[in-house]
């Protein structure tokens, strides 16, 4: 039986895929943690709470905030380099809208490419966008931690609870546990 042919309208080749294979010893003394806020409303506030929750789990951890004001742009190359010099692990946030999910994921990818185990915090409503963004920039395995939605605008008490509850997932994402799961 004859078949009809058409030309594929899609791109023939995409970005080359690279694996994510980083892991950190999160039990090491004075773990240096970068909190990378993209400036989405409540992002810096929420990451501060994440830092506080981590400090309760890892009392000697050193928590450093790297905050910018515009979630529609990526962390500058100098900031990524500074984090690579000064931190052992990083968490990027907040993935809570379209462009901010993109920047949170791509920040994590850029940090991973600089050698820093990194995880992006993405709300469940934007989880699929996070999956897409990670693949679109060539690192589908970059760690993400799923948050409920909404986080921003829910108040300090609720955000502190979410921050506390994500610590296990975040520590797993930074450690080899994530690499095995991926």
């Amino acid at each position, binding site marked *: 039986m004859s*078949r009809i042919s*058409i*030309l594929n*309208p899609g*791109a023939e080749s995409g970005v080359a895929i690279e694996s994510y294979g980083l892991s950190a010893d999160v039990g090491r003394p004075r773990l240096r943690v970068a909190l990378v806020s993209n400036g989405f409303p409540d992002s810096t506030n929420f990451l501060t709470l994440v830092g506080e929750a981590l400090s309760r789990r890892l009392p000697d951890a050193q928590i450093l905030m790297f905050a910018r004001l515009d979630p529609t742009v990526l962390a500058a190359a100098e900031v990524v380099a500074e984090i690579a010099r000064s931190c052992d692990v990083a968490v990027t946030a907040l993935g809570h809208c*379209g*462009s901010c999910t993109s920047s949170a994921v791509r920040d994590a990818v850029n940090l991973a490419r600089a050698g820093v185990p990194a995880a992006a915090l993405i709300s469940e409503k934007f989880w699929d*966008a996070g999956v897409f963004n990670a693949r679109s*920039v060539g690192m589908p395995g970059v760690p993400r931690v799923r948050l409920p939605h909404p986080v921003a605008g829910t108040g300090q008490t609720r955000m502190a609870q979410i921050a506390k509850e994500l610590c296990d997932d975040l520590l797993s994402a930074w450690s080899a546990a994530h690499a095995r799961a991926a």
Partner: protein
Amino acid sequence: MPGPLEFRASLIQAADEDALREQLVRERRTDGLPVILPTPERVEAMLQAAAFAGLGRDIVLGEVGPNLGEATIEKVAINAVMAGCLPEHLPVVIAAMQALCDPRLDTTEVQVTTHQIAPLLIVNGPAVKEAGLASGFGALGYGHRANLSIGRAVRLCLINLGGGWPGMSDMSLLGQPGMISYCLGEAEDDSPFPPLHTTLGFAADASAVTVTSVGSPHSVQAVLTGDVASDAERLLELLAHTIGGMGNNNAGTASGTIIACLNPDHARALHRAGLTRQDIQAELARRAGNPAGVLQRLRYGRTVEDPDRIAPAIGDPAQVLVVVAGGQGFYSAVMTPWGGGPHRNTYVTKEIVFYDACDLPVVGR
């Protein structure tokens, strides 16, 4: 370089046309509507238009974000066939895609935002007539094949090469109809002002497409009285109030491209008052703004130290593109931006080449 009917694109095969159409819909290769099937013969005919312009099918215009798919002339032609374009439409689509591959348009960020922006194509010069673009009544509505097909071809490229898809990568919360097609010609013959592209540095006999991403049109009603000074004053105030609407992103950030789309009657009213395009840009930038206290309270639930300070809605008069289009009457329109991304939602203009170009033009803002 491939010869006639030799393509770099891979083939999709099925038993019949219906199966192919359904497969394209199922695989998210269309905008949700049925398409013209891009058979090798149809694409080859489309590519002849590129050949007249000196553009080989394997020329790469750039990468389309966020997926960074390669936009070759061949791929653009395939998507143009699917959109229903005629060969004379292809040069406009190519120039528009060249603009969207320009890093200044931040196509990755534009495609993923939760805002409802879509690339608007404003065509100037002989291309308006050569492509058969409408610039008058209902130019952004239905019934105009060139406008709809060209705009649709761009959207299909954004889907198929850039990876845009609602709720997966394109996170626009509601979307807007311009996301399917958003293209018009400037009504140069009905305009008292020089064509937009000449204001942006192109020769009058050149053709160009100006591309920027904006939201859906806001209607601006102004009834003229014949009082030259009063009419101009009221028009500017109405346009500025609409641009500065407190729910508009630019009211908070003063960034991004703003389209002041004047109908010919309104354009003539401003021209009669002695205003040039640059004067209109400056007046709108001067007038569009809001008290910071009210703006911050309504938008963010915040208080500010200086509530009576006027927060401008336009940071730079050059952000305003004054365009003449639409039928004659009471209504003009304003399109407002998202304002984000590294280049703050700016605009880019590219030359449209129909014949005998030796090279890809690289001209823009």
